[in-house]
Structures are given as C-alpha cells and as structure tokens.
C-alpha cells in the first residue's frame, strides 16, 4: 500500500459574482482549480508536481495536507483519510504532515523572533515548551545551516537574508519530524546563487529524516534535479506522470514536450526541439471540452476535442509512466 494516495481529487472554488449578476443568474460558476487528480507516493519519494499558473498544483498541495477541504475525492495518508479529519483529529495529524511555503518573508510573522516561531510549532503540535523546545530548535537550526544558532534564534525576520529565512521556514516545517512534507515552490523567491544551498538542505533533511516530499514547482530543471517522480499538471488535471528519468527520456504528452522545448537552457550550444505551442493557458472556469490542451496542441484531432483522455499506461514495459493523451502511442 502506498504511503500517500490521492484519488480523483477535485476542488471547485465558487466565483464571486457582482450584485447584479447574482440577481440575474441562477447559475453558480466555479473555478475548477483541481479537476480529478490521482497519484500515489511511496515513502521516501520526492514527487515533483510541475505546472504553470492555473495548473492547480498549489491547490493540490494544500488539499493533501488538509489546509483545504476537497469538493470531492480522497487523500489517504498512511491509511488515514485526511479530508475527513476535523478539529483535534486534524491537528494531531498535522504533526505528520507539514508545508514549506514559497515566500520566505511573508511566511514569518515580522513581530516574532524566528526561534520562537519555530518553537511555537513544537508547543502547538507536541505540547512541549520552554527550554526543551528551545534546545530542539537550536539543534534544528544547526542541521539546516543556520549558525550561530543561538544568535539567530533571537533575530527577527527582517534581520535575515532570503536564504536564511527560507531555512527558518524549513526548520519550522520539519521540527516535529513530520513524515510527509509539501514544498510549495520553495526556491522560487530565493536568490539564484542561494537556490542550490536550499535544495541541498532539503535533500539532506530528506535523507536524514526519511521524508516524503511533494515538491511543487514550475521549474522543470529543478524538478529533474531533485525529484525521483514527476507529475505534469495542466489546467487542473495530470497530463503525464512517471519516474523522472523516464519522463525526460521519452516525454509522451504534447504539453510535456512543449514545456521541455520552452525551458530556457543555460547552454548556448544546446539544440532543442523548438516547437513552442501558440496561445496561453485558458482559465479554469470553462476549460475546453475534451482534452484540455487541444486548442494549443499541434496534434489535436476530432476525438481530442470531444473526449477527455484518461490517464493511462501506454508502454507495457513502463508501468508507472502514465499519460493522458489519445495519441500517446505515436511518440513511443
């Protein structure tokens, strides 16, 4: 049985209408941020959930740790259905699942010493406070490279660099030794020269604590570097999923191929397939009928415009490589 199992997860957000619209239309429209997402993680996986804006990756991440309740679908962590939990039971579960946010500055209260911010997690989730908690925080600061730990403990966020703040955020997420961690674009807002450090810290803690990560990012290069499995999301659904090596060896979904073609590569001599699709991601209120990518897909046919392709195995020798495309076999 897998450690984390996500099944047909859906999250629809009601659209706020203006007063006039509310009076004249009976229909409620929804932003279908997540529209049927399924995947499973084994313990120790670093699963890269890759997508552009509007893909639903951030919402998916938050659904898996109970920060949002799904409209339908299940999130099962170590046998427990997370979406059914509330109140105290949910809080107890929080010890086992945590989140690292994207913006290190906005994730820390400006009026709290960073050491106290991390200690608060211990207090709230384990009921332990005082000097014992402080000792654990100092230890964690050493692990993540925040030294001198004692001095940094008493600092306020505005006295730390972006990289240091992100380490604090990581420390806070990992201090209660969770088993499952969602990392929401953890290096997107960190300076380029510091990103590798943060990725090292995350990898180090993964190995040390035996963590399972859901690594949300728009940066395929980072995903390739860090993740052993990848899921590509487009407009609320998974387009392609599988082992990292396999996805990059043979991307089968036209959208994945487009992403790979589009990513700027720091190598001027690189020859890339330059098939960049036209158009942009449509909004998630009215996704195109059939395959969501069909308006921009160079290979779209009639069936693509009518039927939504299921996420399926295409190559029998690669059972974990799943693609949601009617024509995936073409690319084998």
């Amino acid at each position, binding site marked *: 049985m897998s450690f984390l199992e996500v099944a047909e997860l859906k999250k629809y957000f009601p659209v706020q209408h203006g007063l006039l619209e509310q009076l004249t239309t009976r229909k409620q429209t929804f932003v279908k941020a997540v529209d049927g997402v399924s995947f499973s993680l084994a313990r120790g996986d670093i699963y890269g959930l890759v997508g552009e804006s509007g893909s639903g990756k951030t919402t998916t991440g938050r659904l898996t740790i109970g920060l949002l309740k799904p409209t339908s679908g299940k999130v099962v962590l170590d046998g427990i259905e997370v979406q059914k939990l509330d109140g105290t039971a949910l809080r107890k579960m929080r010890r086992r699942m945590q989140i690292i946010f994207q913006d290190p500055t906005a994730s820390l209260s400006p009026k709290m010493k960073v050491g106290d911010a991390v200690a608060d997690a211990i207090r709230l989730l384990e009921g332990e406070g005082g000097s014992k908690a402080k000792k654990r925080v100092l230890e964690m600061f050493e692990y993540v490279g925040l030294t001198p730990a004692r001095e940094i403990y008493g600092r306020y966020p505005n006295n730390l660099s972006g990289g240091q703040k992100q380490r604090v955020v990581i420390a806070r997420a990992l201090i209660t030794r969770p088993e499952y961690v969602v990392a929401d674009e953890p290096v997107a807002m960190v300076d380029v020269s510091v990103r590798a450090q943060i990725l090292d810290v995350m990898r180090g803690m993964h190995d040390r604590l035996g963590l399972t990560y859901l690594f949300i990012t728009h940066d395929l290069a980072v995903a390739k570097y860090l993740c052993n499995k990848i899921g590509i999301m487009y407009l609320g659904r998974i387009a392609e999923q599988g082992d990292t090596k396999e996805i990059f060896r043979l991307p089968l979904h036209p959208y994945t191929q487009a992403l790979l073609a589009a990513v700027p590569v720091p190598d*001027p001599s690189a020859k890339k397939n330059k098939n960049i699709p036209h158009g942009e991601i449509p909004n998630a209120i009215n996704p195109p009928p059939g395959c969501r990518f069909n308006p921009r897909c160079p290979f779209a046919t009639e069936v693509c415009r009518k039927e939504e392709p299921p996420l399926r195995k295409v190559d029998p020798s690669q059972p974990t490589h799943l693609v949601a495309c009617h024509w995936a076999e073409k690319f084998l």
Partner: protein
Amino acid sequence: MGDLLEVKELTVEYRTRRATIRAVNNVSLTLNKGSTLGIVGESGSGKSTLGHAISRLVDPPGVVASGHIYFDGVDILSLGAEEMRKIRGKRIAMVFQDPMSSLSPVKKVGDHFVEYIRQHDPSVSPADALNDARKIFEDLGMERSRVGDYPHQFSGGMRQRVMVGLALALRPELIIADEPTTALDVVVEAQILELLRELKKKYSVSLMLITHNMGVVAETADRIAVMYAGKLMEVSTTANLFTHPMNPYTGALLGSIPNILVDDQVLKSIPGTPPDMASLPPGCPFSPRCPHVFDRCRVEDPLLTRLADGTETACHLYG
C-alpha cells in the same frame, strides 16, 4: 559597426539618511548596433538600476553620481530633460517586467499606441497611428481588431506582447527589456523570447536584455555582462561565458543552476548570501563566498581588465 551604446565608468547611488548604496559601481560596457547584450545578475546586482540609468529613469533618492552614457556618440547624461524626452521612446525604449503598471486600464490598447506615437510626432494623424498599431499587432501575432480592446481583456502574456509592440512603435534603435519574461509562465516566456528575436531582426533593433535567468541569456544574447553587488564581474561572448567563464562568480553560478538537458547533474552550491548593499565588505564583493579567494581579494577591489580573447573580467586571478 560601431558602438550604439557606450557606458563609461557609470556609478549610480541611492542616497538615504541611513546609508548611501552604490547600486551601480563604476560600470563600463558597450553594445554594438544590431546585437543583443544580456545583463545578468541576482537581486541587488544593480542590473535593473543600470537599465533605468540608461533611459535616465532613475528617480530620487537614486542619483547618477559619476560617469557617462554615450548613445550614438552623445553623452545623454548631459542632455536636458526636453532633449532626453525626445530620445526616450523614439530612440531608446523600455519594456518592463509588469505590463499592467504601464497600461492605463481605462484606455483601449490602440489608443495607447496612438497617444504614444503622436506624443513624439504630432503630425501623424490618429488614423495613421492606429493603422500602424494594427500592423504591429500582426507582427506580434495578434489579431488586428484587438487594438480596440482594453488591457484587462488581454492575458498576461499578450499584455507583454503589447508592451513589446509599444516599445517598437516608434522604431527605436535600442530596446532595454528589464526582466520582460520573469512574471510569465515558461511557455509564454518562450513565445515572448522568440518574438523578441524575430522582431529584433525585422525592425533592426539592438536589445539590452536584463534578467537573472542564465537560460534566457544563453538563448537570446550575443554577449553577456555579469553583475554582482553593483559591480561588473565579467563581460564575454555568450559562447565563451558558458564554456569557459573567467570569473569565479560566473563559474560558481553556472555550477549551481540546474540544467534540464543534463542527466544526473551534480550541483555545487555557493556558500553564503549576496551581500547587504548598505555594508559591503572591503575588496571584491564576492570575496566572502569565493572558492578561489586569497588575501588580495579581501583588500583590493579588482578592476575590469581585458583578456587576450576579448573577455573582460574583474578578478585578481586574471589581472
């Protein structure tokens, strides 16, 4: 041939009561006509300030402390406001990161073009200006009729196309693009970069592309200038910069960023963090983090020197 733009020993400072920050520190570089110069750096590197200084858009408390900016032979820093206004837009145009802040939400996009064109040449009739806008829209890959739409009716990527179009409307000689694709999704980014490459050729414009993304400059620039903490660290051709970087910062940076085409990549992270611009260490600003640092680096700030193959670097290892 000839340099369209020559920046000479330019220093730009932000003077506040608390500290004076040297955002651009004694920077000299050139941009050849028809080429693309990439300015690469992280936050605080001064790259954006450099771009703004060239269009003379540096606002107080920022001030150009010293140096010259020769555009087509004329030092634009010595020009009066009126003369500079003639140049800005007509000969030097800028594209910024956020298109929304440059477009008025209550004006149709076509009207932006008309106003912009007629501001610089009142003899052009509104009808002609609008026609010009329609032609540009075609080049941008958008329907001509969309000149009648309002900014909010465009998606982020299309708005940025509009900005590129506006920048080209007066047929400038130089476009300075400051992080033009940073806020865009990767596929749209690729579209915009391709657009810039195409239109650069079609309209014969020179391009200064400011970004923190090494991949973007690898694909788009002919020459690259690397900045760190306000200082020019290396200037080189794109090919040379990536194959043999001549500055430890460049080398360290390249070794720390993931490359999607490399399998089983090993990244080497750079220790430390970019410096606090209000309290720079003495000597080379990269010295606290440099893997090849020695004593002289901590005391003496290296000057930019030219190497045999034309590469310029500011490092005691080479000069």
